[in-house]
């Protein structure tokens, strides 16, 4: 167990899997010689060479499309789209090609590719470099969507995503990169689609993922001082999500808050809330409340962005709202 930064957990995960699986190749903009703009791929080019760490020009559609071809050809490509905002340029390759080929070709081939991308605000990067677009991909049958919140999860889930035969969006919150945490020497392998109860509680369930987990845990501490014990669930995988764990929690607490940084309207929380309202209807002792970003582009100004980003305060308000 050592203290590391979140970005290092990504780096180690890639390094370790590339060492044992020669079919894993990386591609993206500035990931090779420059080590990646967020330093997630630092040192890998030097270690594995240009045939496994492939610098690509600024051509997101080609990067994603070439990854599909590589995956069909027997490799396990891990493509980086530098900011999640830029996936918009790669949508055909991801949505129309990668997500569909296994199904559309009647199961003849799988597309085992991973697209690593960075979402989230908090760096005053402005509206085109701060979006959380995971809902787009969670909505596409054939894609999987993963978003880790801790170092051990970043490590284990990235490897699990790479080993998955399906196309996976692996989403890292850029604000978490400098976060320090414990990384186990041999982290437990993780399974996609399995949530983790980060904090048990009996009064309200808070479902979250990614950076928001840390705000949810802080909110839970504060709520505890008023006698409200919140159960915090880290989804870890958004598609497919661990419905069973959330429902089991709801049957214990009877109140549900879903919190994420992504815009609240039509966000991943909407699916979780609707699903729980349906299958968990008789468990509810109050309305299901979502906490998410306001319906506006992420603003640039320091004061604006600070007000925009949902955090501990908004989660506490959300819990209060489940009491009516």
């Amino acid at each position: 167990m050592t203290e590391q930064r979140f970005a290092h957990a990504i780096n180690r995960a890639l390094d370790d899997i590339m060492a044992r699986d020669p079919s894993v190749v990386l591609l993206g903009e500035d990931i090779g010689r420059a080590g990646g703009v967020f330093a997630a791929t630092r040192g890998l080019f030097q270690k594995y060479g240009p045939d496994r760490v492939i610098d690509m020009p600024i051509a997101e559609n080609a990067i994603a499309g070439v990854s599909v071809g590589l995956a069909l050809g027997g490799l396990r490509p891990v493509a980086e789209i530098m900011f999640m905002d830029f996936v918009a340029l790669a949508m055909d390759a991801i949505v129309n090609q990668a997500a569909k080929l296994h199904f559309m070709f009647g199961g003849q081939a799988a597309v085992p590719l991973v697209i690593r991308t960075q979402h989230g605000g908090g760096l005053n990067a402005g509206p085109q470099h701060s979006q959380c677009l995971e809902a787009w991909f969670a909505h596409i049958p054939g894609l999987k969507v993963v978003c880790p919140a801790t170092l051990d999860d970043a490590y284990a889930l990235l490897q699990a995503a790479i080993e998955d035969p399906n196309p996976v969006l692996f989403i890292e919150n850029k604000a978490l990169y400098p976060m320090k945490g414990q990384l186990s020497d041999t982290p437990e392998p993780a399974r996609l689609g399995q949530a983790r109860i980060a904090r048990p509680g009996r009064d309200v369930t808070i479902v979250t993922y990614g950076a928001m987990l840390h705000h949810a845990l802080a909110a839970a501490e504060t709520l505890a001082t008023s006698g409200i014990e919140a159960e915090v669930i880290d989804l870890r995988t958004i598609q497919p999500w661990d419905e069973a764990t959330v429902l089991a929690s709801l049957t214990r607490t009877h109140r549900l808050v879903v919190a994420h940084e992504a815009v609240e309207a039509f966000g991943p929380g909407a699916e979780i809330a609707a699903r729980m309202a349906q299958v968990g209807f008789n468990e509810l002792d109050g309305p299901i409340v979502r906490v998410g970003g306001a319906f506006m582009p992420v603003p640039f100004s320091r004061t604006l962005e600070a007000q925009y980003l949902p955090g501990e305060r908004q989660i506490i308000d959300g819990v209060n709202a489940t009491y009516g």
Partner: protein
Amino acid sequence: MSVDDPARAGGGATPPLLDLYERMLTIREAERACGALFAEGAIPGFIHLSDGQEAVSVGVMASLGRQDTIASTHRGHGHALAKGLELHAFFKELMGKADGACKGRGGSMHVADISAGMLGANGIVGGGIAIAVGSALAHKLLKRPAIAVAFFGDGALAEGVLHECLNVAALKDIPVVFVCENNGWSEFSPTSTQIRFTLEKLTAAYGILYRRIDGHYVTGVAETAAEIIRTVRDEGRPAVLECLTTRIRGHYEGDSQRYREPDPQALDPVALALQALTADGADAAALEALAARVRATVEAAVDAARASDEPTLQSAAEDVYAQVSAA
């Protein structure tokens, strides 16, 4: 019946014209059957028939082996059949049957045979180009002697991804052949109204090897394609092959082509090949018998497809995700 010759992997002499003619005729008869099936309602959705472009499919595929890979377009029946997709699996897929090539999930625009190196027809204009580039890159990285071919029409010349892929292929020395079937039409508009450049100039800008040929003469296509493909294999760099062809039928079946003047000079590669064979002294009766055999083969495949079962939604649901296997 497969029109692909497994012995052909990696080069060799151009197949005899009779062979090439039989392969083209098979495609032509299959497309004719598709037109009829579509008109009678047995094929749902859209179909885009490739009459007039058979020489390109057959001519290029003559230099490819099973290990080589191709990505195709929405007008991909000829590519698929020439690359090795079986006629039975082909018709069953177009009719949406459970034992079609893609279990009825894809249809005309998505026919595929991965085992034969056919990485799918594609419903997105230009959607297959990057896939072919990636496939070729995989061959290179895994040190396989295979190459990839990206088929596209002149209608894709305006798509950004083509430009991205030409650039990447040149930058990374990727062994991919970009084959443009230039029939002068981008859907309902003449391509001259769609682009301000020629493919030749574009290719030169990227520093890529370029050849242009008349796509109506299958022998010429086969020879030129053989040359280009040999270069790509040997030198491990991309190339562009522009084939001038004629799209005999409309953009899709049902397209009345009101936007198009009938062209009495239109060249038909199948007819041209037949003429050449006849001029070379081929026996008319033998040619007739061959044609009858091809028609019978196609009809048998159609009949088998009609008799097949419809797929179930449950079976489709099982293939949304690939299962994690102990591979």
